[in-house]
């Protein structure tokens, strides 16, 4: 299994593009850095949207869901099918991917996941691994194992030339959408009643239940939204990350890195972790392509060894 990342198939293409986007020698380093930073931020924000559902699920239900990537894959395939078979425009596919995956998540939560919350972590790990295997092979069987390609609408293709740095329009689009989602999430968590109920339930489900909060409904909604966000991320990411049946397995470790390094008690923790991961991966692939994902894994191990609760978790959190 090759763990893919942003630059996997398109690495050489990326390097060439960065090289050709630079102008004269003195500005090329800055231009390269800025391009890398930009791409890294785009990748990081995408990872954040993909992984935030997992972070909240883990923090809320204390459930290690290794199958989270399957929801992202579902969103990607929904988009591909809608676009290529039904001719639905790309931008319209995004909310549809979100809704479709959210519904799928709600269904699975109610039927399969709910009995598993109280189980030991080993059982949860085995269960979600089983789900991933099933999802991966099912998609392979139904759709085939080739990479799926999406043709972006023309207004999202190409680059905005700003100075010597070429800003990819699509990556800019990703950053805008994901930033808006982040702001929205933060607002929901801190300003709405649902948000405070959710935070209460994350802090202590038993006490929350004792206060009369319908913990089951909170779980259901949260799981659905988290899965929906993963689906949306999968749809957004189909172009940059590639989409094939092995997507959940390839990216599982990245989602888990975001969650374990970022912690599960805040939104900003996984956000920062995802951005760091995105930038580190892009920069690493560009500057030291021979080492590949090696750097990311070593960084993760180092961080988790020094701060086992994650970089941003409060003391005493899960």
């Amino acid at each position: 299994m090759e763990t893919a990342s942003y630059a996997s198939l398109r690495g050489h293409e990326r390097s060439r593009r960065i090289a050709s986007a630079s102008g004269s020698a003195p500005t090329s380093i800055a231009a390269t850095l800025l391009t890398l930073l930009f791409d890294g931020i785009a990748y990081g924000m995408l990872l954040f949207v993909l992984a935030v559902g997992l972070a909240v699920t883990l923090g809320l239900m204390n459930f290690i869901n290794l199958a989270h990537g399957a929801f992202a894959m579902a969103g990607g395939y929904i988009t591909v099918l809608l676009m290529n078979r039904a001719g639905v425009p790309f931008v319209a596919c995004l909310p549809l991917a979100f809704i479709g995956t959210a519904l799928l998540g709600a269904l699975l939560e109610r039927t399969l996941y709910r009995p598993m919350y109280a189980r030991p972590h080993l059982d949860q790990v085995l269960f979600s691994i089983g789900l991933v295997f099933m999802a991966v092979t099912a998609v392979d069987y139904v759709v085939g194992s080739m990479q799926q390609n999406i043709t972006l609408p023309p207004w999202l293709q190409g680059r905005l030339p700003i100075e010597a740095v070429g800003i990819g329009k699509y990556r800019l689009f990703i950053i805008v959408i994901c930033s808006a989602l982040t702001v929205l999430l933060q607002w929901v968590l801190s300003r709405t009643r649902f948000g405070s109920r959710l935070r209460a339930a994350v802090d202590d489900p038993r006490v929350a239940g004792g206060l009369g909060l319908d913990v089951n409904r909170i779980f259901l909604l949260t799981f659905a939204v988290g899965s929906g966000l993963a689906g949306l991320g999968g749809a957004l990411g189909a172009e940059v990350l590639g989409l094939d049946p092995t997507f959940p397995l390839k990216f599982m470790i990245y989602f888990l890195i975001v969650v374990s390094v970022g912690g599960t008690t805040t939104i900003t923790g996984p956000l920062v972790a995802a951005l760091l991961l995105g930038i580190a991966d892009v920069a690493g692939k560009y500057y030291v392509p021979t080492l590949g994902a090696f750097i990311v894994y070593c960084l993760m191990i180092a961080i988790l060894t020094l701060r086992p609760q994650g970089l941003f978790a409060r003391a005493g959190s899960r």
Partner: protein
Amino acid sequence: MTGSDEALSPAARSLLRAGRWRWWELALFAALPLAWLLLPRQSLLINEIAIVALFAVSLDLILGYAGIVSLGHAAFFGFGAYAAAIFAKDTLADPLVGLAVAIGASALLGAATSLLILRGTDLTRLMVTLGVASVLYELANKLDTLTGGADGLRGVVMGPLVTPFGAFEFDLSGRVGCAYSLAVLAVALLVARRIVHSPFGISLQALRDNRLRAASIGLAVRRRLVAVYTIAAAVAGAAGALLAQTSGFASLDVFDFHRSAEVLLVLVIGGTGYLYGGVFGAIVFQLLHDVVSAWTPQYWNFWLGLFLVVLVLVGRERFVRPWTWFRRGRR
């Protein structure tokens, strides 16, 4: 050992009884050479089962006995495989010496990485174990002058297996390899058996059940975790070495996540915490694999996944330890 039973207190008798050989244990150990003798044409299959069993038993030591959930145990399996293969190719092709080298190398890796799993939550440990296996995968991929990279290390030709009964060349039919693996499995089981009945083994279970209490009776928790992780790594490395030596090559998939997930499943099928779960699980798993793969070769993973989901939903305990269904006082 001891004198007549009448002189012993009930406590002494019970403690001694715990370490005695059960009839089914004897049957199991007898079955190992019998399988080799009676099923000569299944040697390759039996060899595979023995290797997987050894790997699963090593996982049992950390999962079933010490309570550490690892998603990257293949790291040690793979490390042992490559250590044995590289040693045979570059230095000396003697299988037993290579096995010893692989065990030593894996033990060192286990001791080093054990420091990483001492702190943190279950999730942290999952991530770190997964990360270590992934790092090794990438290393093996990149250091291709040493490891053959993505093509793997091929053409590992082993020398003869030197035993007190004579020197045996590894043959194509796999009979010698099979006997070799079974013998290593048997030795490992015997040693593991002594360990789990010893004070050290009981202390591992104490660590698994209640770490705070274990420390409060004077057990140095970290030291023991390091020790058991090192031992488990050494045994997993032995299994990997067996694979490399009996099949003649080592490839990247020894570090693969699938391997870590499968050995977890094998152990869970057979049951954790009573030492032989790895053996029973390996037999069941291999047979299942062959049956299902013959039927749907491409989509084995689907049925594997379905099996996992059903197994967990129904409850792992129902599959475990069939003889306790008839024993009073247990669940």
